């Protein structure tokens, strides 16, 4: 929380002035009953018309001064709260951008988005309200009490009793109902979850004829929620009648004691009216304060969540400058690498292999066997738990971030494009890429036809996520986006799955003709995609069970045979091999 308040310190001036002006406004409000008392005591009782006129003018002045003060307060509050939230939003965004894959996996994007949007918005509302009103209500409550003392100390004692009593009642009800509100929310969530589940599973539910059971379950949860709501409702229903009764009983005592005092001449009629008015002001403010407390409570919770996110620091750190490359006999080298996404459950263990410049490396294995993990370790998206990953002879941990990223381009499984033009999307790979460079990359990625099919060419707008392109088109565009980088190592992480065999093979051919120095990692489930690779890594259950060329593996590796023959049963028949699938 300390961290968050530092964002407000930039607006210290505003944060002080806003409540200050609000207090001035409150002061104007507090003076009104005194002026009215003056009208009664001086003007009416003594028949002093000048006093009445003066008081009237004073009331008008108070009204407009109050408005002026209030405007000023609102101005500063708006400036401070919105400024605070904007600055916070920017740094939180930058902070999220700095997180490593590991933290992203842990938090999940939904949570991060909620922190960025609704939590910060709620925080903004909370800060704004707090600046304007947090001091005002207590000020008026205690101000009214002090004013009462200036009128008559003995009668003011009624205030001294009433205010704590009211506060007690208001806060007791709130304290009791806030946990109940949380329970209501839980019940509501459970009802929501159940309904969502029902809608998603409608076919299965109907196939098993479970509609009536679902209705029964829904009604049970629904009535649960209703009971909870009623319980809270009964409690909150107490608030208004109770405070109303307390204030009026206090007023009754006030008038009674006031009558006795007037009778003996210690105070005057107008003073009693003023005291009565102050009592009325107190109740209004206390109710306001209660609802304010609820809002601020909510914001506080949001603030805590935002602060907790700031506490998550990126797990990867980079040296500022790259160490010189010593020995680049091997371009990528894994030395006994183990890695776990979650502690204790190794995604890959003890993987070792070496590749040379210009090689094509195929990675094959079933889902969950650790194929993607291997290629994610090359650009150091994650740090290994054991062993070493070297690129050009140098441990990836010794590279500066930029140096490493410049060498490697990765085409992820999920083909995502971003809102903007095709050109803007292509420039993700290289900020200043010329149209020629873009066209060249598109051509290699077999994506030329995608662009040529569009009237606006490279200026064609890509909708969010690229939903106005088919899966195959998106994949080819994402491949082009990676090629523009002119990387030394290109990683295709199962990124041609939506392409038909012919396009896939043309793509591989075009890439291999690009540059003899370019190394390509192809992760795939299809044997046909990696058959011609210089080196094939066969993954099974997190272990590198075999490596070699297609020919070698077909002879030596049982797992590779299994995969291959399950995809080419004809071959299996010819070879007389038992097919599992």
């Amino acid at each position, binding site marked *: 929380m300390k961290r968050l308040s530092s964002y407000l310190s930039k607006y210290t001036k505003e944060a002080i002035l806003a409540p200050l002006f609000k207090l001035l406004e409150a002061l104007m409000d507090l003076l009104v009953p005194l002026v009215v008392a003056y009208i009664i005591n001086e003007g009416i009782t003594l028949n002093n018309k000048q006093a009445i006129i003066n008081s009237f003018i004073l009331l008008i002045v108070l009204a407009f001064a109050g408005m002026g003060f209030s405007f000023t307060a609102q101005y500063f509050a708006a400036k401070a709260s919105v400024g605070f939230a904007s600055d916070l939003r920017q740094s939180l965004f930058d902070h999220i951008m700095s997180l490593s894959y590991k933290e992203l996996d842990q938090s999940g994007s939904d949570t991060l988005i909620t922190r960025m949007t609704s939590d910060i918005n709620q925080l903004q509302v909370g800060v704004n309200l707090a600046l304007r009103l947090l001091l005002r209500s207590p000020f008026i409550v205690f101000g009214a009490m002090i004013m009462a003392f200036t009128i008559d100390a003995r009668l003011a004692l009624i205030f001294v009793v009433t205010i704590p009593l009211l506060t007690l009642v208001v806060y007791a009800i709130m304290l009791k109902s806030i946990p109940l509100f949380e329970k209501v929310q839980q019940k509501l969530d459970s009802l929501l979850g159940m309904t969502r589940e029902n809608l998603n599973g409608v076919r299965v539910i109907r196939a*098993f004829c479970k509609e009536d059971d679902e209705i029964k379950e829904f009604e049970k949860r629904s009535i649960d929620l209703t009971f909870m709501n009623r319980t809270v409702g*009964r409690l909150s229903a107490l608030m208004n009648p109770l405070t109303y009764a307390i204030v009026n009983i206090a007023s009754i005592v006030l008038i009674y004691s*006031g009558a006795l005092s007037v009778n003996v001449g210690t105070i005057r009629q107008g003073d009693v009216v003023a005291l009565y008015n102050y009592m009325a002001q107190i109740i209004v403010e206390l109710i306001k304060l209660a609802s304010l407390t609820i809002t601020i409570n909510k914001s506080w919770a949001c603030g805590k969540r935002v602060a907790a996110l700031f506490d998550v620091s990126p797990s990867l750190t980079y040296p500022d400058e790259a160490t010189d490359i010593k020995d680049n006999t091997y371009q990528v080298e894994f030395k006994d690498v183990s890695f776990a996404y979650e502690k204790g459950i190794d995604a890959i263990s003890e993987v070792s292999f070496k590749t040379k410049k210009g090689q094509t490396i195929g990675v094959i294995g079933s889902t969950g066997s650790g194929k993607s993990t291997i290629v994610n370790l090359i650009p150091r998206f994650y740090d290994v738990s054991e062993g070493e990953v070297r690129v050009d002879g140098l441990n990836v941990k010794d590279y500066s971030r930029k140096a490493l990223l410049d060498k490697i381009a990765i085409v992820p499984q999920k083909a995502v494009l971003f809102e903007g033009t095709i050109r803007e999307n292509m420039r993700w790979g290289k900020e200043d890429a010329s149209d020629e460079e873009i066209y060249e990359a598109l051509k290699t990625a077999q994506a030329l036809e995608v662009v040529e099919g569009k009237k606006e060419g490279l200026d064609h707008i890509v909708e969010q996520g690229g939903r106005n392109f088919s899966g195959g088109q998106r994949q080819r565009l994402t491949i082009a986006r990676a090629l523009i980088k002119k990387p030394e190592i290109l990683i295709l992480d199962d990124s041609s799955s939506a392409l038909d065999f012919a396009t896939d093979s043309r793509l591989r051919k075009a890439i291999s003709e690009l540059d003899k120095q370019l190394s390509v990692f192809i992760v795939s489930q299809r044997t046909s995609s990696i058959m*011609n690779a210089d080196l094939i890594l066969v993954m099974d259950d997190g272990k590198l069970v075999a490596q070699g060329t297609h020919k070698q593996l077909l002879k030596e590796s049982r797992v590779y045979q299994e995969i291959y023959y399950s995809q080419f049963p004809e071959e299996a028949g010819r070879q007389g091999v038992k097919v599992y699938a």
Partner: protein
Amino acid sequence: MPEKTSTSTLSKLLKLLDKYRVDIFFSIILSAISVITQLYVPILFGEAIDELIGVGMIDMSLIMRYLLRIMIFVGISAFCSYLMSLINNRISYGTINDIRDRTFRHIQKLPLKYLDGHSAGDMLGRVIADADQLSDGLLLGFSQLFAGAVTIFVTLYFMFSRNVEITIMVLLLTPLSFLVARFIARRSYQMFVKQNETRGKQTALINEMITNEKILKAFGYEERASEKFAEINSDLKKYAQSATFYSSLTNPSTRAVNNLIYALVALFGAYKILNGSLTVGGLSVLLSYANQYMKPFNDISSVVTELQNSISCAERIFELLEAEAQSADPDRELDVKEGMIDIDNVCFSYRKDQNLIEDFNFHADPGMTIAIVGPTGCGKTTLINLLMRFYDVDKGEIYIDGQEIRSVSRSSLRKSYGMVLQDTWLKKASVRDNIAFGKPEASDEEIIEAAKKTHSYEFIRRMKDGLNTIIDDDSLSQGQKQLLCITRVMLCMPPMLILDEATSSIDTRTEIFIQKAFEQLMEGKTSFIVAHRLSTIRNADKILVMRDGQIIEQGNHDELMKAKGFYFELYNSQFAGKQL
């Protein structure tokens, strides 16, 4: 036109509230009593204050009588308002509950055509959020509107009873505060529009960048993203500051107008007292009323929005409730003897202007395995929809052992099929409840036996609480989920099957288990299987080849290969990779 719909919505709403007639009646009475007594109390205070005429002149017993009366009225008012809140709670939460249950019930009866055509999020919104907003807004709106109206009339009555001229003056000045509020609202509205637009853009950017942050990082795009964000963020800051500022001017401004009126009342009141046409207590009444009388007016705009909101929620709910339910079920039960299926001259399409399946004829002997084959998105689910009668055919008939499926109850038809979809769905419940989904009375032994047959018992046993482990979508792997779905069907042992092979690859071991489980299940049963695996396809007795939603070829593997049609092409394309 829109007025007409909202009146009819209103009448439907009233019907919904009919159950609570008596409650509503009492609520209104209590509300009236509490508002009137609440307003009468200041008058009594004013009269009591009037008795404070000077030193030694006060009749304390008279004051006591006033105070006692005040006490009684305060008591009545507090009690009535508490009672009213309780009754309102009853009405409000009761109607929400009724609406919720009714909509959910109705959804269970809606044809799948409707459900497929509407997003789950939209329906969810109607069942939960709209129902909430409807009853909340309606009740709050009406009770505030009613209390507001009573307040205005009673206050005016009391004010007139104290002094006619001052009351008329207050009445004439009231519109001033509206004008000020309107003036400000119009200014701030534009700022709000801009703020919301910019905020929308920003949210979209946040969504895009954070959801795909891994890609972003792979390209080292963070700084550019940050710059983009900063640009929108500074715009938003500008608009939000103005919007927040302008909108917060309304309150102080109307308050200033109210204070102005207050001052005028004080001025003229004082003169009236000097003339003897008003008492000090009377002035105190007028002063406190001048402000109270304004309050309902200030609140009115928010009340109206609230009501409008509820009406539109009501419209959405009624739209759902009035959507036509599926046709009534015949009483006759389907009696499956051997599982012979005949499809005669069936025509079907999802949309009137688009023919999908035309004159489709098909016969399956009992115990046959029928493979449904085709490229992704070819409409294999359409066939499942028709067989399970999730959708009704447009023309033609489907017979099971000579019984037309529309002549028997849906439940008896659906219970005769065991269905395993690729899109695995499990309830958030224990493993046991999930397996026994179709047969809740099954014993643990039966469940375990079924689980053993599908090779899922191994991983179930290893789970924290075995069969009692609560599972949800994230806690299991795709393969485990699929195995549980198969076990679920295994337990029921229905006479016919509809199976959907998984396309997404699952690890080899699990895949073999699933395959074996399928084989176990299919033994001797008429089975439809959406097939992706060549071995499955070749072993099938019949193959239905689908493309673009239509069934274009049928026969067994050898027949279809000979025909050299689409199947031939499809089959060969699987091997095209070999030459590359």
